[in-house]
């Protein structure tokens, strides 16, 4: 399998290099998305299927869509390189030296010690059997709560900046049936990912991203109700995730005396309930980060 790893990483590096050097915006973004998918494959090879799912859905999917949206609005690549050929070569040498140093530093380390046995020993008490979900929603739930806060702040920021909203246009006869198949499937898959996250790869982030994909298919197909009230509802839904998570953390402290300490025996119920609300909130947030808020009247 080493041969496969080598081919995969070579392809990955080639795609990343294309994404960062091609002069044509669309081609560069396409290379970026392909690189994202190859990275998801790399995560599978590194025995991290949870990360792979999130990378494919968020890293390649949502980020790629965001880039495509902005590329259309910003226009072609402007401004030459900084400095001339010699500056570029100097930068290349510097970056090459740095990455060699990094490789030396990372490859010279001995690998994991304390965490895996600790996670294994406490997995029973965490309420779920997928160790990654146990880390994300129980052992280090505070990290995850703050991560949801990052999403919420990004949402507030994008709403404040008010980029031009994405206007759905008539996209032809095939998009409607496409959406009709994909949207219910997305909801189904999201629900499945969410539920399965407790025991197998999956969870709120992956489910939320898939759900966001379905919602975007709806928006782009121009189906369903649109307008200020829907966007406002999506905004509230996006923000609600953080409120629910903080509320749950405080409620848990009220019950057990420990911030984010779920009551014994009911951990799984708490985790699934938090994850379910996070899924909806993440989906709404990702969707709004793409479509933007309603254009404000004074602009």
């Amino acid at each position, binding site marked *: 399998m080493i041969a496969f790893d080598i081919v995969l*990483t070579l392809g990955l590096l080639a795609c990343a290099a294309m994404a960062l050097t091609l002069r044509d915006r669309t081609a560069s973004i396409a290379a970026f998305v392909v690189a994202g998918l190859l990275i998801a494959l790399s995560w599978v090879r*590194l025995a991290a299927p949870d990360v792979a799912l999130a990378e494919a859905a*968020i890293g390649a999917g949502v980020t790629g869509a965001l880039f495509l949206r902005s590329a259309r609005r910003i226009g072609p690549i402007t401004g030459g390189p900084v400095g001339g050929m010699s500056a570029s070569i100097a930068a290349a040498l510097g970056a090459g030296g740095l*990455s060699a140093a990094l490789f030396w530093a990372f490859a010279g380390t001995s690998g994991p010690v304390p965490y895996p046995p600790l996670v294994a020993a406490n997995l029973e008490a965490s309420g779920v059997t997928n160790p*990654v979900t146990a880390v994300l929603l129980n052992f280090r739930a505070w990290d995850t709560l703050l991560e949801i806060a990052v999403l919420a702040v990004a949402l507030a920021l*994008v709403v404040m900046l008010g980029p031009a909203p994405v206007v759905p246009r008539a996209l032809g006869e095939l998009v409607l049936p496409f959406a009709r198949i994909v949207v219910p499937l997305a909801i189904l898959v999201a629900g499945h990912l969410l539920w399965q996250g407790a025991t197998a790869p999956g969870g709120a982030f992956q489910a939320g991203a898939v759900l966001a994909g379905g919602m975007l298919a709806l928006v782009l197909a121009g189906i369903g109700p649109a307008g200020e009230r829907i966007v406002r509802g999506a905004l509230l839904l996006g923000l609600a995730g953080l409120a629910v998570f903080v509320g749950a953390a405080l409620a848990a402290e009220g019950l057990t005396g420990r911030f984010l300490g779920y009551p014994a025996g009911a951990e799984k119920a708490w985790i699934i309930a938090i994850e379910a609300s996070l899924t909806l909130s993440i989906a709404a947030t990702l969707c709004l980060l*793409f479509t933007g808020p309603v254009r404000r009247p004074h602009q």
Partner: protein
Amino acid sequence: MTTDLVYHVAGAGLTGLALWRLATCRDALRRIMALNVLAIGIAMVLLASGFDAATGRTDPVPQAFALTGIVVLVSVTAALLALAERIGGRSND
């Protein structure tokens, strides 16, 4: 030659590639993309460090870090792109 070594090389390579681009390019969108590649490179060396070649398993804690990193990155990318659009858009009117 083990799996994690291959990915250590690739992660370090992605990091270097991104740093080179950040140093030599002025285009806003491309810089944002380079930052994304940089984050991917970091996630790759992180996960490769957590990979245990003997058991074929990866430490769940860095997996959680990488997942958090992906979500944080998409948030910041969306904000950066919104800003870039406003800057680019304003110069036209």
